[in-house]
């Protein structure tokens, strides 16, 4: 019983870690431009498909066509998705930056649909499976059997989250990104290139979405319609974590992943989803600024 409980918790944490990457990117963009990037979920899906494509191409050799492992593909996915993120900011945000936030909402929704339909046209609606991060299979510790993939997801996501934390808090670039997101006009007044910071933020956010897509593509498969659901999960995590808070978003995303897996195991996936949305409604009703909220001016 204990083994099963630990296994469920591990499943929840690994899913929550992937959600945390999606949510981190989501919050970074909210803080930078004051608008929601509704295409974030579609970039998770795009990252998953990119992983599938790269894995097919990167075979070990012609005689031993084993698909390349996710951990080798991960840097390529991060770089490619960061480039997409830069392009995305140039197309979906930059021309509209002086318009009301609702314009950016619509533009990101439109871009998300374009991504979704383009991939659908290329791959079809069938689910695809990405490679395992290192290898599939299990490790047995005493009576506890742990999936290697889950451990790899947790380690990879934790590493990326720590990297983002380091970048944002310990580097001059991170300080510039934070300053520009807190007061873009004042950031310009001290010599920070605000538009460049926004493009970098988009790149970072979409690279994280791509990484999440890679991590999820093996265990949960990837289909072109996944984006909306990931987007909603990120939205729930951001709402629970307090709008604009990076630490709150990561904790809430982990909680969402755990809750979803535990409820899906104990009751059913449908009930888990319904309860998640009910929890979102309750938070919006009774604590609209989120469970870990503090005043916007205190954002980190």
């Amino acid at each position, binding site marked *: 019983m204990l083994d099963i409980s630990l296994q469920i918790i591990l499943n929840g944490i690994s899913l929550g870690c992937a959600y945390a990457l999606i949510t981190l990117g989501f919050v970074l963009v909210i803080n930078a431009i004051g608008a929601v990037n509704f295409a974030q979920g579609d970039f998770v899906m795009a990252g998953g498909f990119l992983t599938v494509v790269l894995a097919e191409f990167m075979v070990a050799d012609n005689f031993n066509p084993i698909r390349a492992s996710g951990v080798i593909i991960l840097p390529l996915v991060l770089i490619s998705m960061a480039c997409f993120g830069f392009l995305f900011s140039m197309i979906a945000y930059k021309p509209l930056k002086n318009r009301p936030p609702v314009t950016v909402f619509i533009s990101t929704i439109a871009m998300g649909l374009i991504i979704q339909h383009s991939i659908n046209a290329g791959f079809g609606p069938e689910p695809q499976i990405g490679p395992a991060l290192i290898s599939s299979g299990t490790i047995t510790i005493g009576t506890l059997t742990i999936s290697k993939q889950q451990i790899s997801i947790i380690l990879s996501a934790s590493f990326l989250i720590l990297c983002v934390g380091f970048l944002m808090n310990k580097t*001059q670039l991170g*300080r*510039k990104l*934070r*300053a520009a997101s*807190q*007061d873009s*006009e*004042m*950031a*310009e*007044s*001290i*010599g*920070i*290139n*605000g538009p460049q910071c926004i493009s970098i933020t988009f790149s970072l956010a979409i690279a994280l979405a791509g990484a999440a897509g890679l991590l999820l593509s093996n265990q949960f498969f990837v289909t072109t319609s996944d984006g909306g659901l990931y987007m909603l999960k990120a939205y729930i995590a951001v709402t629970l974590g307090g709008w604009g808070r990076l630490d709150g978003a990561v904790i809430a995303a982990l909680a969402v992943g755990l809750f979803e897996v535990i409820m899906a195991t104990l009751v059913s996936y449908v009930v888990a989803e319904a309860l998640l949305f009910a929890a979102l409604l309750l938070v919006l009703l009774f604590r609209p600024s989120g469970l870990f909220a503090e*005043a916007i*001016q*205190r*954002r*980190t």
Partner: protein
Amino acid sequence: MNNATLIISNLNASHKREQTIRDIEITLKEYQSMVIFGATGAGKTSLLRAIMGLDKISSGTIQLNGQNFHTMSTRQRAHLGIGYCPEGRRLFPGLTVWETLAVTFNGKKAERDRRIDEIFHLLPALKIKKGDRAWSLSGGQQQMLAIARATINNPKLILLDEPTLGLSPIMIDEILEIIGSIKDNGATILMAEQKIEPSLSIGDLVVVLSRGEIIYKGLSDDIDPDQIASMVMTGSFEPIHN
């Protein structure tokens, strides 16, 4: 090359399509400082924002050490050597004191650390709070940090917009003392203020604005605070004849 630090000629600017300042002519020589007085809405903030490139300039020119910069972006103006301390401080709330100074400094890491140490030596109240986020500081500490941010790159010109706003009398004296010491170090300062008497000592020159226009310009020694107060209240200049 003209030896004046700042020359503003026939400057007109607008904010959200509404003209805020009209035909401003100001010459500020090296090491001089000027205090701009005026009632709320007189155009003090707008003038500083126009100089910083935050409000749209419709006509006129601005030169710093002979270099025209009115067509430059705000960022370029900051790199040119203009330090800006806006009304309401506008600190980055989530950044600590140290991070605020570090992110503002343009230069190498060792030089940055030395300059931050200098600032902490001048403003020990900030050194104690160096790890605290800006939002958690008191009003006076926030103002000190805003001034430190405006001066950390040793700018040629420092724009201060109502630095004593919302502070206690003791803190006002302390802030003006800090600004006085920055001036004594040779900085050229353009400061907008509402509190006439305490801030008059900062300016070698005085300008009074009303409805976006200069209604008085002269040496601070040539005018007394009551006359300035009268101009600010009435919006017109009437010389006192003894």
